[in-house]
């Protein structure tokens, strides 16, 4: 009996960090409608700063003062970011806001690396709470109890704040009805900034309080994102009780699941999320989002026209250049160009879904990496020839996208994006943790193409064929009835339903189609590198894809190719520099703020009429 009680309390204590961080995210989202990806970094920073402060301030009180101080410090850093970056883009399309919050992640990673070094830091136990008490014969760490108390205090504090203070009432009003804020006569700017402080404070508090148990490390930022997204999705966006219940549910499942079936915890998380979403599509405590347009924001796209003569010529010229490249280029540059082609296909598959499809996928690496893993697994377990195994990439990715997409397309906008991310992270964790099958962190190596493709040049042509071919298929599909119907669902779901289009089904198949082509890119990738590691399925990879699309421009069909090529080249150049993350992060922020239309969009604006691609109205 005592064992089960302790087990339950352990679950409660590990729910504490999840709840703190997730409720912070939820509060910020509720008011500003921004899903702040930097949230994970604030959690990490909270841990690092607390680690340093605890070294200076001694004793029981010193410890808790350090925790509070570091949360305050991070809150201030967050305010700085809000005022410098986010204030300029509250009116911008969702995607820009999301990507803008990705820039600071990179900058913070480099700064943390610089200040605290690359090693994981182990926190000393909390003074005065390093013992254990015994519950019916089973020991229970005191600090776990302290964490439970902390989340109770925060939960109570938030309740008081939102129900008993004027400011809290304003925040609640703003969450329920955004248009009301201006009507209330409050200074909206400072309300947003205040909310941002509070939310980030909670994230850092979660990180700081975690130090005696888990220490501080550089991977904390991404590690926390998946579980908190799952928590927010299950609990319902913007709901604090929802965040609490969901954090509890997930944590308890974890501690008890581990007893029954140790490898099951991630699968359980997935199953719980799936079940909740089937029963309550808006989460346990969430409210249905207003039905409306799917994803498209800002000025509508121009109608599609076939490529003009000049644009066709340009395309042919680029293709011609690519075809003769092996004659004079070094192996090294061939590899770079292959990477460009593969990632262009990956970016094009994201763009297909996100631009014309209006479905922003934050987890497309799941299908890229999923395709690559499908190939690698089939090859290493069944000895299939490359000519067959290659096609397992698109097939496997398509199957995965059918599974995940079924849930995702039932939501729209930010909710859909969060869901894609949560699913992708589950897929990543399965690959990462199911070491017996996937090799875990060591990946799967020795996946090479057949001998006839053995030379760099031969595989280059193979890549060109499937890569450029895939991109052309994606582009052409946009002009077919299938592509039109997908775009119709984005433009107006209401109209589409009333002319007999099954919106969910249309979007589901489009999701799978895009997933299959991301999987094709994964197939090409795995044979060009000879190996595959979980990194290729990670959040960072998904974000790379999004940045490529954004860099190229969302509203042009050539955008993803331009973006992916530029990104790959840039990455190759700056990743050799120190502080490349700072450079890349700043660049992302700069692009979002200064060139929201992207490279291709920029060229189209300047030279579009000359290319005959601009239709005047």
């Amino acid at each position, binding site marked *: 009996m005592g064992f089960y009680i302790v087990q339950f309390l352990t679950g409660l204590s590990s729910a504490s960090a999840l709840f703190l961080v997730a409720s912070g995210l939820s509060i910020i989202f509720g008011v500003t409608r921004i899903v702040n990806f930097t949230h994970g970094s604030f959690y990490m920073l909270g841990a690092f700063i607390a680690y340093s402060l605890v070294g200076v301030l001694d004793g029981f009180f010193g410890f808790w003062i350090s925790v509070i101080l570091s949360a305050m410090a991070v809150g201030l850093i967050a305010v700085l970011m809000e005022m410098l970056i986010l204030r300029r883009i509250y009116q911008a399309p969702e995607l820009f806001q999301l990507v803008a919050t990705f820039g600071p992640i990179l900058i913070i990673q480099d700064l943390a690396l610089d200040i605290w070094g690359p090693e994981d830091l182990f926190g000393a136990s909390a003074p005065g709470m390093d013992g254990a008490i015994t519950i019916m014969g089973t020991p229970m760490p005191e600090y776990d109890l302290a964490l439970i108390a902390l989340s109770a205090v925060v939960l109570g504090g938030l309740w008081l704040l939102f129900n008993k203070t004027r400011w809290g009432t304003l925040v609640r009003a703003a969450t329920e009805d955004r248009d009301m804020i201006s009507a209330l006569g409050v200074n909206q700017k400072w309300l947003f900034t205040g909310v941002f402080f509070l939310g980030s404070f909670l994230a850092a508090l979660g990180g700081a309080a975690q130090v005696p148990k888990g220490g501080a490390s550089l991977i904390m930022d991404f590690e926390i994102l998946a579980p908190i997204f799952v928590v927010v999705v299950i609990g319902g966006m913007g709901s604090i009780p929802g965040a609490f219940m969901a954090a509890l549910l997930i944590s308890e499942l974890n501690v008890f699941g581990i007893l029954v079936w140790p490898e099951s915890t991630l699968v359980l998380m997935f199953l719980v999320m799936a079940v909740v979403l089937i029963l309550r599509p808006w989460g346990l405590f969430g409210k249905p989002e207003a039905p409306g347009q799917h994803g498209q924001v800002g000025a509508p796209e121009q109608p599609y026209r076939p490529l003009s003569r000049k644009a066709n010529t340009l395309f042919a010229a680029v293709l011609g250049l690519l075809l003769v490249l092996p004659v004079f280029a070094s192996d090294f540059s061939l590899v770079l160009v292959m990477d460009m082609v593969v990632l262009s296909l990956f970016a094009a598959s994201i763009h297909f879904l996100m631009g014309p499809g209006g479905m922003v996928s934050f987890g497309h690496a799941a299908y890229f990496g999923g395709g690559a893993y499908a190939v690698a697994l089939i090859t290493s377990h069944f000895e299939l020839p490359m000519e067959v195994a290659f096609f397992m990439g698109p097939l496997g990715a398509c199957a995965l996208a059918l599974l995940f997409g079924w849930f995702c397309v039932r939501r729209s906008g930010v909710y859909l994006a969060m869901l894609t991310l949560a699913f992708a992270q589950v897929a990543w964790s399965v690959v990462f943790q199911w070491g017996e099958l996937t090799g875990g962190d060591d990946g799967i190596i020795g996946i090479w193409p057949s001998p006839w493709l053995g030379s760099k040049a031969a595989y280059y042509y193979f890549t060109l064929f499937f890569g450029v071919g895939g991109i052309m298929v994606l582009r052409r599909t946009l002009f077919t*009835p299938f592509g039109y119907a997908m775009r119709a669902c984005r433009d107006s779901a209401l109209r589409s339903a009333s002319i007999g289009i099954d919106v969910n089904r249309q979007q589901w198949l489009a999701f799978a189609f895009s997933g299959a082509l991301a999987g094709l890119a994964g197939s090409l990738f795995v044979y060009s590198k000879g190996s595959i590691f979980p990194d290729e399925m990670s959040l960072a990879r998904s974000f790379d894809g999004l940045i490529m699309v954004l860099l190229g421009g969302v509203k042009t069909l050539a955008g993803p190719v331009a973006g992916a090529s530029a990104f790959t080249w840039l990455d190759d150049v700056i990743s050799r520099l120190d502080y490349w993350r700072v450079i890349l992060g700043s660049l992302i922020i700069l692009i979002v703020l200064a060139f929201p239309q992207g490279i291709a969009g920029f060229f189209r604006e300047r030279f579009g009429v000359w290319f005959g691609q601009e239709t005047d*109205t």
Partner: protein
Amino acid sequence: MTDMGLAVRSLEKSFGGVIAVNNLNFDLPVGQLLALIGPNGAGKSTSFNILNGQLKPTSGTVKFKGVELVGLSPKEIWRHGVGRTFQITATYASMTVCENVQMALLSYHRRLYSLLPIAARLYREEALALLEHVGMVDQENRPCSVLAYGDLKRVELAVALANNPTLLLMDEPTAGMAPKERIELMALTNKIVNERGISVLFTEHDMDVVFTHADRIIVLDRGTLVAEGTPEEVRNDEHVRRIYLGSHHA
């Protein structure tokens, strides 16, 4: 009870505590133009949304040509020949006028999953014929995003006609239009009804339009049917006068 028309019985819809439609009963025989009027928030759009399957009623039945529509999806209801236009126009902003109509035709001809042909080349003639009908042929190649509001309403009408509907639901077809345009659009609707022998249920705040064009009128107030009859009867109804006197709906 008409077998071929629309028969609505005991229709109810509540949102939480708000009763938007309360025990609504009416018939719409084939070939008639029936106006559904009432002040803002009377439950007109809600009734439309129930009829085309976008909303599930709390209770009640809707029979169309003898088929029960309650419980069917918008797609299935559309397949039974029900077209609709929206109070706030819903068109595809990133497509041309012609493509908007072609989209409906693609759906009608069950080509939505086709991956080979070029969509803009399919059913173009048919689409142009429909646009001809509503007088939008000359703007066929313009993006819908740049059209005047009145023109958008006409595109919507062409789209709604694409599946040869036998029942057309038009939610405020002339809202936001200049008076001259209103008369033109309703004359057009009248013509289409006569030519094709379809039934139309429409809502409208412009009483001139209603009294000139409707064959029959039903009046809704806070979800409840308060009057029903020919324009003449409704014009003289005590309750209707009370609702509309003082509060002028232009």
